[in-house]
């Protein structure tokens, strides 16, 4: 199994044999890995436990802990959420999931489309295009969202000035009907390049031979796409899907800057719902914590599922 240095590029990415130099000690990895593991456990488990405890109380912002009003209400906060009486909560769950599905779906499709066009293009401007596609990813999201807010402004916004000039209509982009879609537009602007660049990297590294063989065998372009491109890219597709789905689910800054969850609660995604309950005006830490626990669980379930899929795809493709 010993690879010579010459064969290094073909070497499996993960080294599975023990090293000399004291490496055969059974727990040799610990001194390298333990500090980080400890930090990660402390920084994730403790807040999670703290959050879970807070969600079982009626604690409000500003109460001292020895106050008489402060008590454990046990599962009251959760019962309120799941008895169906809390319409605002279910609205948040619904629009968060809808946003995740739409944003991820649209960005994956548009990203794939752009990536394959980039891959087939032999324009000299390609490096410039790729450079520009990194801009939405590098711009500070909260500031980018502010700029979009000005673009969306119904009186002073550029979008409406153009629409008015061309078609004579004005759209209230951040009004109750459109706000959700406006946030979706910003998200698509911000993250389609992300998906496109990842898939483009994958397309570029694909070998030509299987495609030549397939076309000799008379496979259609759709068949080549379905049975060659997709399987060969599956590891990357799952990775892009994982990162996009989870980040769309926890979306906060864009929506916070653009609408603060409004108008009314039209764009109150789960993160913003937590914020509204916990902010200085309401200060309902107990109830907000219960919603935060739900958000945490939803994100965990989605990320677990996609990580599993991604690991399988990565193992299959080696």
């Amino acid at each position: 199994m010993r690879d010579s240095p010459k064969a290094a590029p073909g070497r499996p990415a993960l080294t599975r044999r023990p090293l000399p130099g004291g490496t055969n000690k059974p727990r040799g990895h610990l001194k390298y890995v333990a500090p980080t593991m400890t930090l990660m456990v402390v920084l994730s488990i403790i807040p999670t436990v703290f959050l879970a405890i807070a969600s079982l109380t009626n604690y409000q912002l500003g109460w001292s802990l020895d106050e008489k009003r402060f008590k454990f209400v046990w599962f009251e906060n959760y019962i309120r959420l799941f008895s169906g009486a809390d319409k605002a909560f279910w609205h948040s769950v619904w629009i968060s999931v809808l946003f995740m599905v739409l944003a991820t779906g649209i960005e994956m499709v548009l990203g794939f489309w752009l990536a394959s066009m980039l891959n087939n293009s032999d324009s000299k401007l390609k490096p410039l295009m790729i450079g520009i596609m990194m801009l939405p990813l590098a711009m500070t999201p909260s500031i980018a969202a502010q700029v979009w807010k000005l673009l969306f402004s119904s009186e002073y916004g550029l979008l409406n000035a153009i629409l008015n000039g061309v078609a004579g209509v004005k759209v209230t982009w951040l009004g109750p009907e459109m706000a959700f879609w406006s946030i979706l537009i910003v998200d698509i602007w911000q993250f389609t390049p992300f998906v496109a660049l990842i898939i483009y990297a994958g397309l570029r590294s694909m070998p030509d031979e299987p495609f030549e063989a397939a076309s000799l065998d008379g496979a259609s372009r759709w068949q080549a796409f379905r049975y060659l491109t997709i399987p060969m890219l599956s590891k990357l597709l799952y990775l892009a899907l994982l990162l996009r789905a989870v980040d769309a689910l926890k979306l906060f800054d864009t929506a916070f800057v653009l609408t603060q969850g409004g108008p009314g609660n039209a764009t109150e995604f789960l993160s913003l719902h937590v914020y509204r309950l916990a902010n200085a005006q309401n200060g309902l830490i107990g109830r907000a914590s219960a919603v935060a626990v739900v958000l945490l669980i939803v994100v965990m379930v989605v990320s677990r599922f996609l990580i599993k899929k991604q690991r399988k795809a990565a193992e299959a493709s080696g």
Partner: protein
Amino acid sequence: MNRIGHSPWRSAGRGVVLTLATVGFLFPFIWMLLISLRQKVDILQPEKLFAPFTLDNYRELFASGEIFPYFANSIIIAVVNTVVSLFLGTFAAYGFARYNWKKREDRAFFILSQRFLPAMAVVIPFFLMATLTGLLDTVWILIICYTLFNVPFTVWMMRGFIEDIPIELEEAAFVDGCTRLQALRRVVFPLVLPGMVATAIFCLINSWNEFVFANFLTITNAKTIPTSVMMYLSVSGVQWGQMTATGVLAAIPVLAFAISVQKYMIRGMTFGAVKG
């Protein structure tokens, strides 16, 4: 690589779509730049595309000096957090790359899963704990919180970079009598240095742009650039000129950094999964 679409129409159509998309991706940034260069009276009149440019907004920004602490905090937090994350993360990455144990992949994915914690869910306990420990509204609480996403990132990035180094080089060093730490310092470290610089730059960008922790765990003293958007929302409306000027100034270092790690961009976006 031209597998499909040799027809000139197809390639022309592709050119048009790609150009339009690129312009679309670029536009909000250009718009921010244009707004920052306009007179206050012109900002709310989008049809005045080519109104005379002015540096007044930048001058006012520097004259009031309100924004300086934001920049100072952002720089301190980003730099300290990056140093800590890189130090811890690289050691862990070495352990993951060069040792093999039964639960290795599960542990690696446990670390990765921290990256997926929703900030808004953990910000409540962090707020309560920071209040109890007196860390609220200090740069320290943000330095601690940012390790939550930068350490996992470093572990995964650096693991890839270390695995790229042929193990034989280290073995040769052992044969020559190096201890593991000596081999790490003299062989591995110089070879992964470019990767480490790239990883550091990504960590800096991540910290620089973070909003949720920065907004809710600070009050006045430790505010960072992304939260400055809240400062410009005054009762008389949004101060667009100064806000966009801040945005441009905040974007300059990020863009300079992004250009410098262009080669590693894809790798950084995919946690080292794509060695593009």
